[in-house]
C-alpha cells in the first residue's frame, strides 16, 4: 500500500467539490457586497446582531421621544403665547385699578373703569381655560377634579350667596379650580404637556366668605376692585383699602405669571436642546448599527478579488491537470 496514490475518480470529485466550495464562497461574498451588509442573518455574527437590534430599539425609542417632545413643545408654545397675552391684560388691569383710585373721578367714570375691568376679567378667565389642539385644558395641572361640577376646563365660574361683607367678595361671583394641582417635571427625554394653573392664577375658596390671605385668585382681586368701583355707598376708607388690596394682589399674580413664563421659556429652550440631543443620539445609534452590521466595502472588494483569483486559479489548474493522462501517450 502506498501513500502516494491518487484515485482518478476521487481526484475529479474532490476537485469539483473544492471548485464548488470556492464558487459558493464567491457567491456569498458577492451577496454581501450587493446587500452591503456584513451581518445578513443572526448567525453571521450573533453578538453584533444582538447589539445592532439594541441600537435599532434605541433609535425607535428616540423617534418616539421626539414625537412626544413635539407634542409637548406645541402645548408649551401655546401656553407661552397665552400667558404673554394675559400679561398685557394684567398690566392694563393694574393701570385701571390705579386710575380708579383717583379721588377726582365721578361715579360714572368709576363705572366705566369697572366695566372695562369686568371685560378684562372675562378675557383672563377665557385665556386661563385655553385648550390645546386636542381640546385639553393647558392649565389643568395633572388632570381634572371630578368632584368639582362644571365643564371640562381648568377654572369654572360659579356663584355663592353674596356674603354681604363690604370688604371683600360681596359680589357672590366665584372662580373655582377644577384642575388637579401638581406639576409634571421635565426629564432628560420629556417635557410636561401643561402647567399647574392653580400656581399661576390662584384659587378662590369653594364656599363661605372669601376670606384668608392664601386664597386669592386673580379673579378675586379683580372682583374686589370691580365691587368697590361699582359701590357708590362704600366709605372712602374701605374704597381705598379695597383698591390697594386689589393692586397688591394683582402684583402678586403678575409675579406668579412671570415666574411661570420664565419656567416656560426655560422648558422651550430645553426643548431645542433636547431636539438637538435626540438628533445627535439618533445619528449615533444609526452609525453604531451601521458599524455593527454594514460591510467594510474596501475590505470586502479586496477579499472578493482574492476569492475570484483563487477560483480562476482552481479552474485553470483543473483544466490543465485533467489533460494529463498516460492514455494520451499510448498510440
Amino acid at each position, binding site marked *: 500500500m502506498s501513500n502516494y496514490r491518487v484515485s482518478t475518480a476521487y481526484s475529479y470529485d474532490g476537485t469539483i467539490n473544492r471548485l464548488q466550495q470556492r464558487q459558493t464562497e464567491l457567491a456569498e461574498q458577492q451577496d454581501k457586497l450587493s446587500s452591503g451588509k456584513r*451581518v445578513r442573518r443572526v448567525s453571521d455574527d450573533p453578538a453584533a*446582531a444582538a447589539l445592532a437590534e439594541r441600537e435599532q430599539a434605541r433609535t425607535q425609542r428616540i423617534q*418616539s421621544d421626539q*414625537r412626544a417632545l413635539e407634542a409637548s413643545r406645541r402645548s408649551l408654545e401655546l401656553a407661552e403665547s397665552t400667558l404673554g397675552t394675559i400679561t398685557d391684560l394684567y398690566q392694563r388691569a393694574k393701570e385701571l385699578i390705579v386710575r380708579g383710585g383717583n379721588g377726582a373721578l365721578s361715579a360714572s367714570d368709576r363705572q366705566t373703569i369697572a366695566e372695562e375691568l369686568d371685560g378684562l376679567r372675562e378675557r383672563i378667565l377665557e385665556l386661563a381655560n385655553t385648550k390645546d389642539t386636542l381640546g385639553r385644558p393647558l392649565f389643568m395641572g395633572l388632570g*381634572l377634579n371630578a368632584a368639582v361640577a362644571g365643564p371640562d376646563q381648568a377654572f369654572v365660574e360659579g356663584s355663592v350667596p353674596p356674603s354681604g361683607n363690604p370688604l371683600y367678595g360681596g359680589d357672590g361671583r366665584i372662580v373655582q379650580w377644577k384642575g388637579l394641582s401638581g406639576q409634571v417635571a421635565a426629564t432628560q427625554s420629556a417635557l410636561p404637556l401643561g402647567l399647574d394653573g392653580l400656581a399661576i392664577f390662584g384659587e378662590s375658596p369653594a364656599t363661605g366668605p372669601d376670606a384668608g390671605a392664601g386664597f386669592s385668585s386673580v379673579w378675586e382681586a379683580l372682583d374686589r376692585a370691580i365691587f368697590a368701583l361699582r359701590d357708590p355707598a362704600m366709605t372712602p376708607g374701605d374704597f381705598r383699602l379695597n383698591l390697594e388690596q386689589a393692586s397688591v394682589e394683582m402684583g402678586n399674580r403678575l409675579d406668579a405669571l412671570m415666574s411661570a413664563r420664565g419656567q416656560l421659556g426655560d422648558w422651550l429652550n430645553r426643548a431645542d436642546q433636547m431636539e438637538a440631543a435626540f438628533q445627535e443620539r439618533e445619528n449615533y445609534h444609526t452609525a453604531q448599527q451601521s458599524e455593527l*452590521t454594514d460591510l467594510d466595502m474596501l475590505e470586502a472588494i479586496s477579499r472578493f478579488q482574492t476569492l475570484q483569483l483563487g477560483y480562476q486559479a482552481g479552474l485553470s489548474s483543473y483544466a490543465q491537470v485533467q489533460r494529463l493522462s498516460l492514455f494520451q501517450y*499510448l498510440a
Partner: protein
Amino acid sequence: MSALNIATRALTTNQAVLQVIGHNIANANTEGYTRQRVELQAVPGQQLGGGYFGKGVQIETVARIGYDAFLTRESNSTRSAAAAEATRYQYLQNVESLFPLGTGSLGTLLNNALNAWVDVASSPNDSTARQVVLDQFDALASRIRDTFERTQEIGASARLQADGVAKEVNRLAQAIASINDAIARVQGSGAPPNDLLDQRDRLIAQLGEQVQVTTLRADDGTLSVFVAGSLPLVLGSQASQLRIDRADLDGDRQLQVQFVQGSSVYDIPEPFLGAGKLKGLVDFVNDDLVQTQAELGRLALALSETVNRQQRSGLNARGEPGADLLNLSPLTGTAATGNAGNAQLAMTVADAAALKASDYVVTYASATTVTVQRASDGAYFDGTQWGTTATALALPQTFDGLSLAQTGGAAVAGDRFYLRPAADAARSLRVALASPAELAAASRLSMQAGVGNTGQAAFQGVSAVVDGAAWPSPPQAATLTFVAPGTFNITGTGWAPASVAYQPGQPMALTFTDGVNTVQVDLVLRGAPAAGDTFTLSEFPLNDPNVVRYNAGNAQTMLALRDRQMFDDSVTLSDGYVAVFSGLASRVNEAKTRSAFTQAQADDAERRRANQAGVNLDEEAARLLQFQQAYQASAKYLQTVQSIFDTLIATFR
C-alpha cells in the same frame, strides 16, 4: 507438449489479467468500486532429471486491492456525523430566516407597539393614537403567531423527512440482508465475490448516512448491522425495521424513533441514535425547534402578562377598569398518551420577569405528589430551587414564574404531563380589545393636596400596577401626613408602609394589599413640605368618562414598562427580541461550525479511503502496457514453440 501448455496458459492468463484491467478501467468512476487485481502464481514444476521444470503461470485469485476495513469504517462513521450536522444546519437555517434583522424584525414590531403608547400619553383623548396602539399590537401578535406557525411547518417537513429516512433505512437494510444471503451462498467456492462485497460496502455507506450503524462480520461472510449501539437491524439475511412515531409526551411536536423486530417494538432513546440524517432530524425537531418556540413564546407570555396587568391597573376612555389587551388560550398541561389517571393541570403566570424559555415535564410520584423537571437542562425542582435529584412535591407549586395547579380529575402514580406555556402563548397570542376606547390610558388613582397646606410640596405623578389577577379596589383612601418635612405617615386600611422618608422628585414605593391582590404604587412629590401638610391618594370614581378624558397616567406607566428588566435578569422588555434570537443564533452558528468541521473530517477520511481503493487510470494504463507486452511475448513464445515443432516435423520429411 509442456512448452505448448506453458504458452497457451500464459496467453489465457495474460488475457484474463487484461480483462480485469479492463474491468478496473470500466469501473473507474463507479462509486464504491474497489480496484481489483489478478494474483498470479507460478505452476509448481516437475522434477525431470536435472532439476525442476516450471509449468508456467496460473491465476491464484482475483482480489480487491487497497480495501481497508479501518479506512472504510472511518469514512462511514465520519460521513454519518457530517450527515447529521448538515441536516440539522440546513433546517436551522430555515428557522433562522424567520427571525430577520433590522427594520423587518420582530424587535421593530415590538418597539413600534410599545412606543405607540407615547402618542396616547401625549393625547389620551385622541382616538387615532389609541387605534395606532391597537394596530401595532395586532401586527406584533400576528407576527409572533405567524412565526410560530412557520416553525411548526418546518417541523412538519422535518418529520416527513424523518419518515422518508426511516423508509430508506428499511430498504437499505433489506438490500444488505439479500446481499448477505448471496455472499453466504458463494462463500464455499473459496474465491471472494468482489463486486458483491463492494456493493454491500456501498449500501452500508449509504445506510450510515441515514443513521449511524456498527457492523460485525460473521464466519459465513455475512455482515450484521446494528443501530443505536446494539439493536440488530440486519442479522445475516434477516432485516428488522425502524419506524418514526409520535412521542409519548408532547407528541404533536416531538418524534420517537422505534425499532421494530417482528412483533416487538422498542423505543430508541434520542442520545443512542449516534449520528446520521435521522439523528440530525430528531435533534432538530425534539430540541432545537422546541427550544426556539419556547424562546419566542416566552416573549409572548411575558409581554401579554405585563401589558395586561398594566391594563387592569388603569381606566379606559369610558371610565371603566381596563380589560386585558392581549389574549392567550388557557395554559394547560398536555397529558401523556399512556396516562392512567384523568388529572388536569393548569398554569398561570406569577412573575413575568422570572419566566424561563423552557418546557417542563411533570411526573406524578404518587396520586398527590409530582416531580417537576425542566426540559431545557433536565434539572428538578425541589420546592425552592433547581437541582439534580427529583423531589416529590404537592401541588400547587410556583417555579420559574409559573404557578402550577391541578384543576380537576385524579392522577395515578406514573402519570406524566408536558407543560409548554411559552409555545402555547406564541400559538395563541391575540389582541383582545376591539375598540380604541378600551385602552386603559388613565390612572385609577387620584392625588389631592390637602386644603390649607402651608408647604410648597406638590404632586408630580403617581403610577400603580396590580401584582395579582385583579385590581383590589382600594376601599379606603390613603392619607399622607407630613410629621416632619422629611417624613410622612400613611393612614388607610391595607396601605403600607406606615412611615416613609420623603425623597423629593424620586418615586416612593407604597403598597396596597387586599387579600391576595397587591397594588404597587410609585408616588412622586416635589418641593418642600411643611409639617402638618396632608395629601390624599384615592381612587377615581368609575364609569365617568369626564374623569379620565385628559388623564394619561397609566399610559405613562405603560411606557415605563419598556425599560423593565424582563428576561434572564438582564434584558429589558424593549430589547426582548434579542432574548428570542440570541439562543437560535448561537445554535445556528454552532451547527454551522460543526457541520463544516465534520464535513472536513468526512472528506479527509473519504480521500484516504478512496485514494487507496479507487482506480488510478495511469496505473491501469501502465499495467495495460505491461500485460499487453506479456501477452505479445507469450504469443511470440507460442510462435517460437510452433516453429520448433515445425522444424522438428520438417526433419522427418
